[in-house]
């Protein structure tokens, strides 16, 4: 699958206004989203990798070959993403689960008042470095996502040849307009002063208010994305970027959506 992206930086003071504008534009209420993101880095030639990540049977033909090449040929940073809710923060980790389950589907494994690392669902998100030399002014990259087993993800990731680099929280709101997914988000960092060893993901989450934004003025990043199943279909890719340009025009007076710097999205591990 391919992903076409445009980005914009949104100053903190404009955030609320932009939320309103996007709600109006997309005719939907924002879906708030909180995600734990873990960054993993391949640390050895994954020639040793025997397990193919995720359900790659679903990906067919040329894409399958490319994906295999991606996964076995080079070394890449990948992300593991887990959805959380605000209720998970600052809660003590109780391994004993009470009977009452959160109604939220994605959080069905979590107790209402506690964060249970063992039941945290995860998703692997592989992103290639954006394609070079495309004439259109959108960021295009190969992508693949796959569900991962719940719970402690560091062990299986290590087994696949990935070491844990860092983790952070992404907080934001999602809108959908036709085929465009608009994600207005910012990065939150965990409080530093913790004796916990930083060689693995946290088992407990700190209180929400202890998280600090990476960008200390609290600015947001606006990301507009279209996912294209068949990236080799030029016609489809062209239509998708036309749609993105359409959105860029519509939002022109509010924010300036642009292509991202290719090297800043470089996922290759050197």
């Amino acid at each position: 699958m391919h992903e076409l992206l445009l980005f914009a930086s949104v100053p903190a003071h404009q955030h609320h206004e932009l939320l309103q504008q996007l709600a109006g534009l997309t005719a939907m209420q924002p879906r708030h989203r909180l995600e734990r993101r873990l960054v993993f880095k391949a640390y050895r030639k994954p020639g040793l990798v025997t397990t193919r990540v995720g359900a790659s049977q679903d990906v067919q033909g040329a894409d399958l070959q490319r994906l295999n090449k991606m996964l076995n040929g080079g070394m890449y940073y990948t992300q593991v993403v887990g959805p959380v809710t605000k209720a998970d923060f600052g809660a003590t980790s109780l391994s004993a689960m009470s009977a009452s389950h959160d109604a939220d589907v994605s959080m069905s494994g979590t107790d209402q008042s506690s964060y249970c690392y063992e039941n945290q669902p995860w998703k692997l998100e592989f992103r290639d470095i954006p394609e070079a030399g495309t004439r259109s002014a959108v960021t295009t990259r190969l992508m693949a996502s796959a569900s991962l087993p719940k719970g402690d993800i560091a062990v299986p990731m290590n087994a696949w040849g990935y070491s844990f680099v860092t983790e952070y929280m992404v907080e934001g709101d999602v809108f959908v307009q036709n085929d465009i997914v608009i994600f207005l988000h910012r990065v939150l960092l965990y409080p530093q002063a913790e004796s916990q060893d930083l060689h693995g993901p946290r088992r407990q989450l700190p209180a929400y208010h202890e998280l600090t934004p990476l960008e200390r003025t609290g600015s947001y990043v606006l990301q507009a994305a279209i996912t294209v199943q068949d990236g080799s279909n030029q016609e489809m890719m062209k239509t998708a970027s036309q749609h993105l340009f359409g959105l860029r025009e519509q939002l022109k007076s509010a924010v300036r959506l642009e292509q991202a710097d290719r090297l800043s999205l470089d996922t290759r591990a050197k």
Partner: protein
Amino acid sequence: MSSLTPDQIKTLEQSRQRLVQLTHSLASLITSLNQSDPLPSWTSLQSQATIISNNLLTISDHLSDNRDLLATLVAYPSPSYPSRNPANTVALEQLLRTKLDPRVEDWVARGRKAAGAAGNGNGLDDLGALAELWDWAPVEANQEARRRNWGGNFTLEEREQGVGNVVTGLRRVLEDDDDDSESEEGESGEEEGEGEPDEMEIVGVRRKSGVGQGLEFDIAPVSATAASGPGHAGQQKVVAPVVPLDEILRFMTVGIMPSQR
């Protein structure tokens, strides 16, 4: 990968020419600083600085106008390129770099830092100063206005120097009379009728200026708060992002903290 259209080549050629101009003017400034003894006069330095800043402006305009094209261009050598020649190889290596030259990277870092400092400190200071100015200006303008005797076609200085000498640029003749100003201003003229024009006029003018002041004073605090309100709020709220988008994306991708680069 399609080849370039003539228009795009023209754009590239233009950027090259402008950069050449810039390097020329920079070089001439440097040589004039190095070679002339005593130093060149400040007027010539200033004119050279103006030229350079104009050059920079045109370049930055040009670059931002053609951002879409220039950001997506990729250089690659064609097989016919004479890469055997060592001089050519150097140029080739420069063209094919994906990262900036270390020296250039230092410059960029320094520039970013300076821009960040300016955006941070001075920008806020400027906002503060601006708010202060807005607080100060209505009151001060009002006081200044109160000192004047409003009405009439001519200023005091003009009257002292002789009304005939004033170039008004008008066809009709302006009279230095109070009737005129009164009838023009309507409101006071009608009310005061045709008593003693001089006295009445003066009273009218005074009252008028009084009214003006009253109005102004009613407005002034309001406008002052209005001006300062958003100003102060803006001071707290309008803060440009400190970390560039690229750095945020880089952190999200590979976990390198923005400051560590």
